[in-house]
């Protein structure tokens, strides 16, 4: 049975999540993939403001297909997380504690997740049509020029994910 999670995710709730646990997320999640991560890390290095406050928030690695009239979003499954591994530590230092993507992360990144008591969740890759049904609304909040890679603020209802690396550093991957 999946556990229901509402955003923002509090520290005790985040730390109680265990690798292998299936969850259903409701509330706000923010999208960002390769290009948006690069820009956010550049902002941090240049001491500029970030597009949103990371406190208690979730970043989902996705670049959706365009929405048709009447749709909140197009197909929107996860992209591979390992490509974000070189950027994630900077974001975690700025307060990001929950990430959603797909696939394994590098061992150094798993160690950072453990040190930061953060959590890495996975959504199932290649099921973007199904996942789009859980998105209630979508709004671009930064980097519009990046097209599919722009940062979107999504409102989701029962978005399915699995805890892949928990705050104690335990991983679901072998």
């Amino acid at each position, binding site marked *: 049975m999946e556990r229901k999670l509402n955003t923002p995710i509090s520290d005790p709730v985040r730390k109680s999540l265990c690798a292998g646990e299936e969850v259903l997320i409701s509330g706000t999640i923010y999208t960002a993939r390769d290009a948006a991560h690069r820009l956010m890390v550049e902002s941090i290095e240049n001491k500029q403001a970030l597009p949103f406050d990371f406190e208690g928030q979730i970043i989902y690695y996705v670049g959706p297909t365009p929405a*048709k009239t009447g749709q909140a979003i197009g197909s929107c499954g996860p992209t591979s997380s390992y490509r974000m591994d070189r950027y994630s530590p900077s974001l975690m230092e700025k307060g990001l504690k929950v990430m959603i993507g797909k696939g394994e992360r590098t061992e150094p990144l798993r160690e950072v997740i453990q040190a930061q008591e953060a959590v890495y969740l996975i959504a199932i890759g290649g099921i973007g049509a199904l996942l789009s049904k859980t998105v209630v609304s979508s709004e671009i909040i930064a980097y519009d020029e990046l097209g599919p890679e722009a940062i979107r603020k999504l409102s989701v209802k029962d978005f399915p994910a699995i805890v892949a690396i928990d705050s104690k550093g335990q991983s679901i991957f072998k």
Partner: protein
Amino acid sequence: MHKIARELVVNHVKDMIIESTKTLDKSIVDSLFLAKDQEENPLAKSVLEKIIKNQEIAKTEDIPLCQDTGIVVCFVEVGRDLHFDYDLRHAINEGVSKGYIEGFLRKSIVSHPLKRVNTQDNTPAVIHFDFISGKQLIIHLAPKGGGSENMSTLKMLSPADGRQGIIDFVLKSIKDAGGKPCPPLIVGVGIGGNFEYVAELAKKAIFRPLSDVSPIMEDRLLEEELLEKINALDVGPMGLGGKTTALAVKVNSAACHIASLPVAVNLQCHSARKSEVILIGTQA
């Protein structure tokens, strides 16, 4: 001399792209059902159930199966009796452009690998041409996802590495890739040829029908052994464990140099989207 109208090529390419990004071939769906029934790992079973449910939603609600609607790869067979008074490559790319814009598909192509500026219409496609006899134009097309493509591998083995060297390299490639290429996979293996040709052989292998077996005995035996060994790796759907790591393995081989044993592994994710069309030229 025979001709095929440019508009026909453009429209067929457009339609193939829109259709294939939303509909999984029945052979793949049947194979996923079979895998789900045979899977003993509960998490693997649950992942396969969601993949099956996803293709139902994609088909009935006209939503792309996956948000990564790919880079378009075409293998084009051109009949020798055909004459073109237009650039066939341009016509195919125009079909790609229309398909991605009119089909509300994601534009995932950047014009230069370092400048990384999006071309806004998913062109250019990667197009391979070959000649055949007759007046047919056959276009095999696949919108190929980036995640599985990124996990593909190539190695120039030594002849002494032999069959076992090939098996070891393929298994290592799949194990190292883990959940990243979105298993269950279709594994395309190229052996022989040279550096660039072995990659093309592997790519062509994933275009083969799911039930197709190699007519060459050595390759067929390799396909069977690799499938069994890959599914014993316990990578499983999305890398979460289980015995469904690959739905099929296809091996394509070619002649090679006495010094070489090239091997390439091209991975196709479970969202194995492809299409083909045969157009017949009319007397000009």
